[in-house]
């Protein structure tokens, strides 16, 4: 589903945000991307939804080659992804339902199907009763659930979540994380950048750790090595 090979990303001033990053994410996986601020997590996220392009190397997402993607193909890639941010990015002057419907309207969904699809995802994130609430009337956790519902409404194959619990208290964090696990259980690939190590320890998911723009640890490789080591003698 996702493949990065030898990806470099240089800032305009020449400094490297990413150095020779390679990893793959297969079908149905849940992957944590961890590391301190500035380690390169967000840059990887931005490469995944083609907000940025690699300076060199290859980034393939859901069959699209981000390095060579034409500008008019970017919307097509994004319709196959769901993206969630720390700051929710909801429109303040629209209700929860309208925020989700907006994502369908702007991608040209058929008008008569929109209401039903919006209710379906709102139910999925447990907010069916709050569909007419404006973002300011919702708690942080609820706002993030609306954002997740918006990300899900186009039935994405991959959900990219950049610090989705960064602004939430512990209880809301648990709720949102459980929601992401449920989504993953339904077959959607989830890539979640976080520096909440408690969360990472809580679940036994693959973890890729970044430092100074490079991958310093990948639990999948670790397991592979251990498996190899176990077979060796």
């Amino acid at each position: 589903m996702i493949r990065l090979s030898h990806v470099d990303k240089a800032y305009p001033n020449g400094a490297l945000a990413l150095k020779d990053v390679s990893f793959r994410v297969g079908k149905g996986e849940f992957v944590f991307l961890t590391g301190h601020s500035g380690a390169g997590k967000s840059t990887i996220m931005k490469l995944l939804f083609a907000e940025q392009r690699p300076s060199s190397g290859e980034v393939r997402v859901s069959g699209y080659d981000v390095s060579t993607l034409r500008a008019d193909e970017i919307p097509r890639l994004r319709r196959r992804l769901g993206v969630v941010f720390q700051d929710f990015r909801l429109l303040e002057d629209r209700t929860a339902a309208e925020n989700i419907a907006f994502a369908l309207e702007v991608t040209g969904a058929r008008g008569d199907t929109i209401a039903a699809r919006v209710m379906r995802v709102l139910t999925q994130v447990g907010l069916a009763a709050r569909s007419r609430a404006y973002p300011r009337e919702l708690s942080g956790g609820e706002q993030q659930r609306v954002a997740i519902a918006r990300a899900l409404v186009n039935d994405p194959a991959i959900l990219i979540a950049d610090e989705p619990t960064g602004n939430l208290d512990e209880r809301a964090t648990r709720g949102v994380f459980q929601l992401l696990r449920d989504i993953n259980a339904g077959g959607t690939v989830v890539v979640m950048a976080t520096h909440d190590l408690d969360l990472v320890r809580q679940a036994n998911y693959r973890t890729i750790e970044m430092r100074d723009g490079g991958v310093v640890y990948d639990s999948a490789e670790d397991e592979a090595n251990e498996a190899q080591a176990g077979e060796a003698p």
Partner: protein
Amino acid sequence: MKLLTREALLSFRRAPLLSALSITTIAFSLFTLGLFGLVAINLRAALRGLEERVEIVAFVLRGTPAETITLATEDIAAFPEVQDVQYITEAQALGRARRELVEFRDAYRDLQVNPLPASIEVRLQEGYRDAASVERVAQRLRGFSFINDVRFGREWVQKLDHLRNVTGIVGLVIGLAFAAVAVVIIGVTIRLTLLQRAREISIMRLVGATNWFIRGPFLLEGALKGLLGGLLSLLLCYGGYLLFRDRTGGAFAGLIFFQTFQMVGIVVFGVMLGLGGSLVSVGRHLRHV
């Protein structure tokens, strides 16, 4: 499509003052173009009338026998360029002068001797009313021994023609200057809307709206402003036209207004100005939001 129209119309509510300003600038730009256009089409209409009346007048020497003139008239009528020939006797010339030149009526009434010469008036066929043909026919008329002098109004017809061209060019230049201002103002309005809606646009991008989908409402907004500006300018032009025609006490009662295709042209030009302004602005600023 519903969304597109809704978003475009919303922008008028979001920035009513700027929207009004853009529409007014377009309207004034087209109003200027339109006024000069009106002068130009009216001059052209007047010139067309004059061209039909292009006459060559050959003055006949006093004492030329009537038979000579009759024969010559037949000769001249056989020229390929000539539509008809009329012989005006001295008496007819005086009668006409008294009739037409009201201001000199008294002077002509008291005359003892008729000072006006007889003349042969020649009207040319359509297609031969250009300067070269007129000059050719005039040359041939001078060849008759009894012809004293040949005159034709070509020169001031050409002057009027020149005036019409100058009017057209001046109107075009001023109108285009206004048009440029209109494009800039529309661009600024669109840019403000873009900044106002940067968050919305970034979310549209994120969920996979195409660039054209994002641009659509802005382009429609510009086109609508152009349309309204164009219509307003026509209204202004018509008002100006009526005012001028009626205040000048009938001297310009025959003034004409634009024909339908010309009005459509003005409105279409307005739409293009609006569309152009928003295209440039959206193209330049959409990248940065």
